[in-house]
């Protein structure tokens, strides 16, 4: 079942309810008049020249909703924002995806969208860093770069005329993600921000918040610099990735990765927006309370996080006034 399905004891249930009520009273968006279900009439002033946006349709002169959601009005635009819908990509968004298919001159990635996204071979930097025309040999060696089920980080380049999505991975920070965990949360929990790549120094961990709801937590990898190398050096470099695969991730690093991943899972179950600061605070909370990593997914920690968040938001609110 959707929603919080934790075995809560009576006191935990009361505490959680109180924290959630406090959060609801603090948020200014709790306006139940604005929520509509399918075929509800949307209250509008018909004399205005209105723009009927997504999720609305005209029925006998009335404006009627076609999805369940919240009515948003911006100037003359009236539209219904669906509560649970697929990720809506925008140009320039950073997304994390999994390779589904390797086809002619392109890779197809699954991001949390209605269609699979396409990453063209020409939108990808070559391993040796030279900007050149992709030859047939490059096409045959595509599997050496990404294979099926690899996790890739890229940026939305544009939309094709038929609605499918094109990605690009042109700088060193994009590309294959290794040695870590991929987490899937709801897309609306990851808001657009200035930084989607976070390097957590105290843990030595990379955190990539994809706007499609795919979050990557992994060991930190130094961005390789794209110098032009000649053949001798290229053979040397091709040995280094193999060696890297053989290096063992230390236990402490794995524990840190799991701790951060569990923090993200707790935040997504409680429905809080996910950003790097909140994740760090949750991880600190878990270490101050000295909770084991696997206990983080238990009910007590969920209640603690909810209470902490309610306190934090009420403090922020008081500071503003």
């Amino acid at each position, binding site marked *: 079942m*959707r929603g919080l399905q934790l075995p809560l004891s009576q006191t935990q249930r009361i505490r959680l309810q109180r924290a959630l009520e406090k959060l609801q009273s603090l948020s200014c968006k709790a306006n139940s008049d604005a929520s509509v279900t*399918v*075929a509800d009439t949307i209250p509008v002033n018909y004399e205005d020249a209105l723009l009927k946006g997504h*999720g609305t349709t005209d029925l006998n002169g009335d404006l009627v909703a076609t*999805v369940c959601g919240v009515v948003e009005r911006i100037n003359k635009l009236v539209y219904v924002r*669906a509560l649970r819908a697929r990720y809506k990509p925008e140009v320039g968004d950073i997304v994390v995806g999994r390779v589904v298919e390797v086809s002619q001159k392109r890779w197809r990635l699954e991001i949390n969208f209605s269609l699979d996204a396409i990453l063209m071979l020409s939108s990808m930097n070559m391993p040796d860093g030279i900007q050149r025309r992709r030859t047939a040999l490059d096409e045959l060696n595509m599997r050496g770069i990404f294979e099926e089920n690899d996790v890739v980080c890229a940026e939305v380049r544009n939309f094709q005329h*038929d*609605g499918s999505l094109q990605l690009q991975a042109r700088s060193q920070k994009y590309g294959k993600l290794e040695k870590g965990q991929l987490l899937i949360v709801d897309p609306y929990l990851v808001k657009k921000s200035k930084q989607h790549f976070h390097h957590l120094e105290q843990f030595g961990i990379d955190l990539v918040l994809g706007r499609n709801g795919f979050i990557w937590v992994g060991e930190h990898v130094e961005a390789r610099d794209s110098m032009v190398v000649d053949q001798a050096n290229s053979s040397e470099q091709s040995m280094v990735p193999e060696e890297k695969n053989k290096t063992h991730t230390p236990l402490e690093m794995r524990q840190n990765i799991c701790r951060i991943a569990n923090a993200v899972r707790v935040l997504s179950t409680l429905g809080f927006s996910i950003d790097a600061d909140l994740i760090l605070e949750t991880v600190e909370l878990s270490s101050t309370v000295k909770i084991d990593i696997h206990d983080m997914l238990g009910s007590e920690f969920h209640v603690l996080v909810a209470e902490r968040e309610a306190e934090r938001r009420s403090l922020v609110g008081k500071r503003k006034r």
Partner: protein
Amino acid sequence: MAAKPGSAPVTYSPNLGQKTRPPIFKDNDLDWVRPDGRGFHQCRPAFFRTGAVNSASGSAYAELGSTKVIVSVFGPRESKKAMMYSDTGRLNCNVSYTTFATPVRGQGSDHKEFSSMLLKALEGAIMLETFPKTTVDVFALVLESGGSFITLVTGDLPVVISCASLALADAGIMMYDLVAAVSVSCLGKNLVIDPVLEEESYQDGSLMLTCMPSRYEVTQLTFTGEWSTPDINEAMQLCLDACSKLGKVMRTCLKEAASASQE
């Protein structure tokens, strides 16, 4: 019905004027008491809940009496078969029964007829042009069957259709309106709404009506058996009333789910 040699093959036509069994109700027999004590024009109380399946885009669970159905909706997602570009989306429905759904434990089967009827009922209500090139998959699983599924119509299909439209609304797929379905049985001169297994075995005819309550439009109408014209009119009117009430119940369910998730 062998064709005479040398003649063109005849089309099959039913043998009229020969009843296979005597009518159960000889006169205006109003003494039939429904097994669960309902009135003739009373539907079973309905229970709906969305969000039953976590891994699906949208899902719903419905319980009407002893009929229990769970529907999960996936999509819009990429069509598995490589298809020509089409500017409307595709809807793919699948209705299956569990092995423990019927009183006699049988083989869980995949009902192609029910699947195509579910497809026809939902097609008219969904705006297919909002998700071109993609497919929406609707999987309905009947956990317990309250009606017989030996006769094609009635029984569980109305519950499956209503539950499926709730699941589609939960998944955020654009629709013209919710779809509610109700079935009516004709037992002699009586019209019995929302029949159970026993009533269906005695029926003379049955009708299933699927409509969009707010728009007052019918998406699917299925008649079987013997009907007289005035009975047809009365039965359709009954169904339309019941559908609008069922539509209100479905709306309250969606509103509760929406207000719960807005925290």
